[in-house]
């Protein structure tokens, strides 16, 4: 009996000392882990930010001086010439105008359409709830493809027009599902009590449900706005011949192509007015293009994080 107790005690002591030892080992391990993790995070941030900061530096640097290379995080020879050139470029400004226009109109119309459809299919008593949902879910997976869509838009008279940026992408089933999931989380009693007060479906949608959906609306608005702001392919495909409907990104793409083709040629530098080169102009145009987004997205962070999580869970 006493021997057994002794054994048990010594076992216990052993296990305690093992656990103490392993704790010490873990403390060292943890320290190493934290250092490695710190290095990893530093590199991650560096790789993410450096190219953007480098572009910023180039955009404020004298173009011809920049050809020598060696510009990293700070300009060597300060100038605003690149930005002035960008602002004076007719095509870039036209692109910026159209891009702002399509972002504003596209986001507002798309938000309204997606929210309304989400509202309809989230009504419990709606007669064709299942059918309408199914009809739209299918569109997430089946796609006619580039050529049929191209011919359709042509047939509808959407090519060579501004509206090709707004109308075709107005409703997106994925966004509708995200909003619907959010709406389903709202209490039914809201709708019921409003109905007792004599409110119709549209009044409830505008006055009761929508104000409560602000977080998810902000998420979807951000998604759509970023999509609109960054689009270039539709401008290239449907409005190639119409300089008046060009977009900022498409103009930027043409600028990139010109830089790639003649980066080393001296002619392009001679042609350019003042001390700018295609490289420095493009840097300035890039900064102008990303500035609105960079200023906006950190403030909408908590919205899109929740929005994305809702959407992902629902899927």
């Amino acid at each position: 009996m006493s021997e057994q107790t002794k054994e048990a005690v010594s076992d216990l002591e052993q296990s305690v000392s093992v656990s103490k030892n392993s704790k010490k080992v873990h403390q060292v391990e943890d320290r190493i882990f934290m250092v490695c993790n710190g290095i990893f995070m530093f590199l991650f941030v560096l790789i993410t930010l450096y190219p953007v900061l480098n572009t910023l530096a180039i955009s404020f640097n004298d173009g011809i001086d920049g050809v020598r290379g060696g510009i990293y995080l700070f300009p060597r020879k300060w100038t605003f010439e690149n930005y002035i050139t960008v602002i004076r470029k007719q095509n870039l400004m036209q692109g910026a105008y159209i891009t702002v226009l399509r972002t504003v109109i596209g986001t507002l119309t798309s938000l309204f359409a997606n929210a309304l459809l989400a509202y309809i299919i989230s009504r419990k008593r709606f007669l064709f709830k299942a059918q309408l949902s199914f009809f739209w879910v299918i569109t997430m997976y089946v796609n006619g493809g580039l050529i049929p869509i191209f011919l359709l838009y042509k047939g509808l008279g959407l090519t060579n027009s501004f509206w090709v940026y707004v109308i075709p992408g107005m409703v997106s089933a994925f966004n509708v599902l995200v909003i619907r999931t959010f709406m389903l989380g709202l209490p039914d009693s809201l709708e019921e009590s409003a109905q007792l007060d004599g409110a119709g479906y549209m009044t409830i949608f505008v006055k009761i449900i929508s104000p409560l959906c602000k977080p998810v609306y902000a998420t979807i608005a951000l998604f759509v706005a970023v999509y609109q702001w960054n689009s270039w392919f539709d401008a290239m495909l449907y409005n190639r011949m119409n300089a008046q409907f060009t977009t900022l990104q498409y103009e930027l793409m043409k600028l990139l192509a010109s830089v790639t083709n003649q980066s080393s040629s001296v002619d392009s530098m001679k042609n350019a007015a003042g001390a700018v080169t295609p490289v420095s102009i493009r840097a300035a145009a890039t900064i102008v293009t990303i500035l609105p987004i960079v200023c906006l997205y950190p403030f909408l962070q908590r919205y899109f994080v929740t929005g994305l999580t809702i959407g992902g869970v629902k899927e």
Partner: protein
Amino acid sequence: MDSKYNIKEIKRQYVLLIWSAIFVVYGFVFYYLPLGGWIMAFQNYKPKTGLLHSKFIGLDKFKFLFEDDTFIRVVRNTLAMGVLNLVTSFVMAIVFAILLNEVRNKFFKKPIQTISYLPHFLSMIIVTGILHDALSANGIVNEILVNLNFIARPIDFFAHKEFFWPIVAFTNLWKETGWNAIIYLAAISAIDPTLYEAASIDGAGRWQKIKHITLPGIKATIIILLLMNVGNVLNAGFEIQYLLGNGLVKGVADTIDIYVLKWGVSQSDFSLGTAAGMFKSVVSITLIVIANVIARRTSEERLY
């Protein structure tokens, strides 16, 4: 039986019904009508004669596709880059989420996360432009490599076929890792914190906690997202390849979408373009259906 479809209820819901009708018409025109265009793939479509009067030629266009070496190569490229992107972006997003979760200092954690989203909001035009600069002969990457004596003289990364797929994968990682990690971070934050406390008391280190608590905790999310993304494998191939590709790397850079664009729009062979696009859609849908079946199986297993 269908007592809910009575006149009174229809009258009550007329606003919803009118709007639904508008949405159905809209959806039909912009999403279902293009599917009718698939008929073109079986025709010798001429814009003059139109869809109704063009001559049917059966599977000739598909025959041409499968005998065309370029098309076979393009399918291979799309699949290879799609799978490479899928695997690398998955691994990186999970690794980043787990490691960021281990950063305990709020002062660092928040800004790192905010910065990690930044590239997601930049257009592919800008991303490829920036990348082009970084990888050019006098760009930062070559400068570092030369200074570290890894290479003797700058490499023109865009002129060598073997670099193209890794560049595409890296571009994708650079742009989307932070964004893709959001959902994993949410899943990690949903793990019961008492599990970690218990493990600490038992003397588990960080590494062990990651291995035995965090990873199993987000396993379900990982599987669901993986299955969801399988259907997108063929969709991962247009913007980067179109913007970064050039004559020298054409053989490995061109994807199905670029093929469609070249034949369909530039060469105006609408039928061939439609056939290639249809092939892509059908393969994608098949992948999605298979993934969904697997998803259902695994979720059933999890239930029991």
